[in-house]
């Protein structure tokens, strides 16, 4: 006991080196985000001459004004922006619409299905579940091509419905994830509810859902982050400005090189800050739960 305490306190070159490594990893992770912030508060014209300064180059909020559509075209041009209209308020709103609707509906229907797979007895249950699971094996692009044709034929290109529909009703992962948790709930509580005369629907909402609040929340966060960050599908079906989500808007913004000069870096960094911030905030508030569930999936 004492020897351990002593050896802990003694300076240990190996341990010190290990701590330095930890510091390096944290620095490598955080510095790019710092640089993103720093650039977003900079003036474009001053970036080349202050390219090594740790502080914003001629600090200003112009970049944010520009990407939020608050400055006039001539003003934007003058500050190294492009003539194309950018309105990240709108893209932010669109991303919220897509991510929130996907999260709510997909989690609800996946949970209902997971409950039926975990708790109800019905013929063909395991076969149907296995077929659901097999979808996890298919690379998304293989089904994306026909899904694009379907959405186009339904006339849903450039609509919110077209963007959310393929992921709205279920995700194989969500069904699988929740089923694992529902399987572990003790049957006694459920039976007690049934004896009290509660139907299946009531048992689900009054017993199963409250008891699984933690995994359902975790799943909802993961679904939200995935929907928020998705680029491929909205790029295909939602380029129109009215439904353009942040990821697609960033790609288009990047492609609009201003007349003369390089890309509008401070504007681009301001836009990435806007796109990243909601997820980072969500993660800061609920990160502990996400970390624990990822670790859980690692051991299982």
């Amino acid at each position: 006991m004492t020897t351990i305490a002593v050896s802990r306190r003694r300076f240990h070159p190996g341990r010190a080196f290990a701590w330095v490594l930890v510091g390096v990893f944290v620095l490598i992770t955080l510095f790019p985000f710092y640089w993103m912030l720093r650039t977003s508060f900079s003036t474009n014209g001053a970036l080349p001459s202050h390219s090594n300064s740790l502080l914003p180059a001629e600090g200003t909020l112009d970049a944010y004004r520009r990407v939020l559509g608050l400055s006039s075209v001539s003003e934007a041009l003058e500050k190294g922006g492009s003539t194309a209209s950018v309105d990240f308020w709108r893209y932010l709103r669109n991303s919220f619409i897509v991510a929130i609707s996907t999260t709510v509906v997909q989690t609800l229907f996946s949970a209902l299905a997971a409950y039926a797979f975990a708790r109800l007895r019905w013929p063909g249950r395991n076969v149907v579940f296995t077929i659901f699971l097999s979808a996890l094996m298919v690379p998304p692009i293989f089904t994306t091509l026909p899904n694009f044709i379907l959405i186009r034929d339904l006339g849903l290109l450039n609509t919110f419905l077209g963007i959310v529909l393929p992921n709205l009703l279920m995700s194989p992962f969500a069904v699988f994830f929740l089923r694992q948790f529902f399987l572990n709930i003790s049957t006694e509580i459920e039976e007690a509810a049934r004896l009290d005369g509660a139907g299946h629907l009531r048992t689900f909402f009054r017993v199963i859902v409250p008891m699984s609040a933690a995994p359902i929340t975790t799943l909802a966060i993961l679904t939200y982050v995935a929907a928020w960050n998705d680029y491929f599908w909205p790029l295909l079906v939602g380029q129109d400005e009215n439904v353009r989500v942040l990821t697609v808007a960033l790609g288009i913004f990047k492609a609009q090189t201003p007349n003369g000069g390089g890309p509008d870096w401070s504007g681009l960094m301001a836009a990435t800050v806007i796109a990243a911030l909601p997820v980072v905030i969500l993660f800061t508030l609920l990160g502990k739960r996400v970390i624990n569930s990822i670790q859980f999936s690692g051991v299982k």
Partner: protein
Amino acid sequence: MTLTSTARRLRRPMFRERRRETWYAIAFVAPAAIGFVVFYLFPAIRGVWLSFTDYDLFSSGEFVGGANYAQIVDDKVFWNALLVTAEYVVVNIGLQTAVALLMAVLMQRLAKSLVIRGILLVPYMVSGVVVALLWQWLLDYQIGIVNNALDFVGLPRQSFFGDPALAILTVAFINVWKSMGYTALLLFAGLQAIPKDVYEAAAIDGASEAKAFWRVSLPLLRPVLALVLIVSLIGSFQIFDTIAVTTKGGPVNATRVIYYYIYDLAFNRYDFGYASAIALVLFAILLGVTLIQLRLTRANKSDLA
């Protein structure tokens, strides 16, 4: 006679209850099942059909037999794409696993703090598009901070995205940065699951920290490591966002990975038939990789069990 009728009378409510339960189950599964059939099952079948046609988004598409598959065999761009993807996967997975393993060991041996784990996970939570744009700025040839740093230590500036020899490595590196914290967290969980007494026994036997890692941690971590490898490997084959934002497959075809090639064929050249055939080949490759991996994993079932 009376006995069986009593039994039947007793069983009848149970039968009815079973039927009720089945109806409820059908109602509960229905929305998800519709989503599954319409957006997973039906497109999968349609995708196979498309791969045998010359469908191009505007015509109805004629059945062309195995022509698309015959075309793949002679398609130099396809083979190059496969090669570039393989290069990306090897660099990405190799580097990521090595770095993540180091991070996981550090997390377990000294930095158990949740905050540190949280910080290291942030890049994984942020969109691939954001990460791609951020690194394109950091690596900018003229005024990017990384090139400035190279300049400072006396190394030549590098055109990270413009140099064909560097482009795919750059993309691989960016995605290592994005996912290393996530992979480390999975491996950390695996390390935590190894019982303490194994280490104690090793320490009593006089094993050094390094030896304990190679002889105890690593072998016992193998099942988790295998699982993590297979999941990240499959994800790695589907690299798209970074390339779509930065290089768009270039310079020349240096970063035209298979996913981007399929996208390009379908949505820039409207060659859905041919694109579907390549997507199916990709599916077959991933299935093969998974099966090989699963076999290896099963052969190495946890030494703890």
